[in-house]
């Protein structure tokens, strides 16, 4: 049985179609990443899966229960960590956890043990009696993850679990999530728009504009791209793009303020570039394929373009290499 099973999911807000027919399946024990820019439909999908929003059409089954017909059973079997904090700062960590355990109906003797376990797991056992308002952002997020696990859910939903945290804290949060998966069998459904974070997942779905563009393992996705990304700064970018096409047979476009293109064996390509381009080159960056490139391959834009621009980019520079 799949932990999460979604069929032809559509969500419309008035004229806006936030989710345009999503199908997906997450296996039990899998860590599944939902990767896409802000506004791609990630949060809307998660809200439907957590019974916080109703789908316009389509169906979703989470932990064996239908999200529309068996809301209470779904809620009992999922853990949730939202983008926005949902802790009570006037309560201690312990009191926040107890509140959660009581509302989720965790039997009292078990609750005490679970509180010890989850606090230990996220390294907050020694701060358990402190008011949450004295916690740092990273500690709060850890406490929220601990709370999401308190009632031993079958599926843990993490909606941008590291948003607003500094890189070091972000890495620490992922360590905790990794340790959690070693300690117990749990399915994790995580959304992120940080490319590097998607690499922690077993499988990734790339979502853009309300649709899933592709689903695969991070390695397979990167292999499919096959090319390295080259970004150059030149004296005349427009001329450089023309020259790249005419002299080197490479389609390039402006991304993040640089002339960007993809070629197999990027490092070997650089000497040719200097010899044949005919436009002065100031800087060159060659990057091995990353999930960012995967995103670009399947959506035609970088994740930052997508967030800045809204509309799809006119340049589909890697479209030919799918």
């Amino acid at each position, binding site marked *: 049985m799949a932990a999460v099973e979604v069929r032809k999911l559509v969500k419309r807000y008035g004229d806006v179609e936030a989710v345009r027919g999503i199908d997906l399946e997450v296996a039990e024990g899998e860590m599944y990443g939902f990767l896409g820019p802000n506004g791609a439909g990630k949060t809307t999908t998660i*809200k439907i899966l*957590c*019974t*916080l*929003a109703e789908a316009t059409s389509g169906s979703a089954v989470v932990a064996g229960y239908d999200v529309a017909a068996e809301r*209470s*059973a779904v*809620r*009992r079997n999922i853990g*949730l960590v*939202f983008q*926005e*904090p*949902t*802790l*009570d*700062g*006037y*309560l201690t960590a312990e*009191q926040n956890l*107890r*509140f*959660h355990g*009581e*509302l*989720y*109906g*965790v*039997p009292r003797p*078990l609750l005490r043990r*679970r509180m010890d*376990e989850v606090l230990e*797991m996220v390294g907050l056992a020694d701060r358990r009696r402190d*008011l949450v308002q004295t916690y740092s952002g990273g500690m709060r997020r850890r406490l929220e993850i601990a709370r999401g696990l308190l*009632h*031993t859910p079958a599926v843990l939903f993490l909606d941008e679990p590291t948003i607003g945290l500094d890189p070091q804290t972000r890495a620490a949060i992922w360590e905790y999530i990794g340790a959690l998966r070693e*300690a*117990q*069998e749990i399915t994790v459904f995580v959304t992120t728009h940080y490319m590097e974070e998607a690499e922690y997942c077993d499988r990734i779905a790339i979502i853009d504009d309300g649709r899933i563009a592709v689903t695969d393992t991070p390695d397979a996705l990167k292999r499919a791209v096959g090319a390295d990304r080259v970004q150059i700064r030149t004296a005349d970018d427009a001329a450089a793009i023309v020259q790249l096409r005419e002299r080197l047979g490479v389609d390039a476009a402006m991304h993040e303020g640089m002339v960007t293109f993809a070629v197999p064996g990027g490092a070997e390509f650089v000497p040719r570039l200097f010899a044949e381009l005919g436009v002065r080159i100031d800087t060159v960056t060659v990057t091995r394929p990353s999930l960012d490139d995967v995103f670009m391959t399947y959506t035609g834009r970088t994740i930052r373009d997508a967030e800045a621009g809204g509309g799809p980019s006119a340049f589909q520079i890697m479209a030919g290499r799918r």
Partner: protein
Amino acid sequence: MTTTDVLPATGGMAHEARAAAMVWRREMIRFQHDKARIVAMLLQPLLFLFVMGTGLSSVVDTGGQVDFRTFLFPGVLAMSVLFSAAFAGISLVWDREFGFLREMLVAPVGLPAIIVGKCLGGATMATLQSVVLLALAGLVGVPYDPVLMVELLALLFVGALLLTAMGVLLSARIKQIQAAMPTSQLIIMPMMFLSGALFPMANLPDWLAVLTKLNPLTYVVQPMRAAIFDHLDVPADAWAALDPSITWWGWEVPIAAQVLVAVVFSGIVLGAAIAAFDRAD
């Protein structure tokens, strides 16, 4: 860590009650943290009772047999409790702003459990605050009769529940704290003035008399004052002037029926508050 911990199926009413009790307990925990607010909330009624009450006692004619401050005492009690109660209800707007409302709304419990827990919590907290004021009863000539104290606390609790539920109802619709505060004041103030808390309701013009009878708070304040007068030696004419009985189309409403009206009103507003809340909030 084991993976065999499996939760029992939802426990029906027992589970709902447990959830409501926890929401109630949270209000109590927060109340303990908030000592500064408790002190501030007590100062206002003391001002009313001893400054305004003393000042006005020379102006208001109480027939010479009843101290004006004795008359004022139930009104001031009600006032302090009701304001705290209304604010406790509105605190849901803060809960929404700081995200905790969502933690409550996604839990596998019914909305009624959460709202009832919240309202009972706010009402309990507000009633507990009144204990400090009740301790001063002797200063304004109200006897420390245990029966009277229990009667007053019970009535205050009913009124507090009404006002907390109104606050919750407001916060279901109003999402900004800047708007919720003045709106609640706008509702509480006239309710206060028209309840007989601060001045006797004898000889009011007709239109005002009708409004006082429509005001649910009247049915809290009037029984409180009747309970106090019951324990004092108040002459009939002073009683009639200071605490005239409520009549509906000439029928004198008994105290028990008045209390019933207050309880029913609280229940209705509580139901409205539950109905007004949106799960996806």
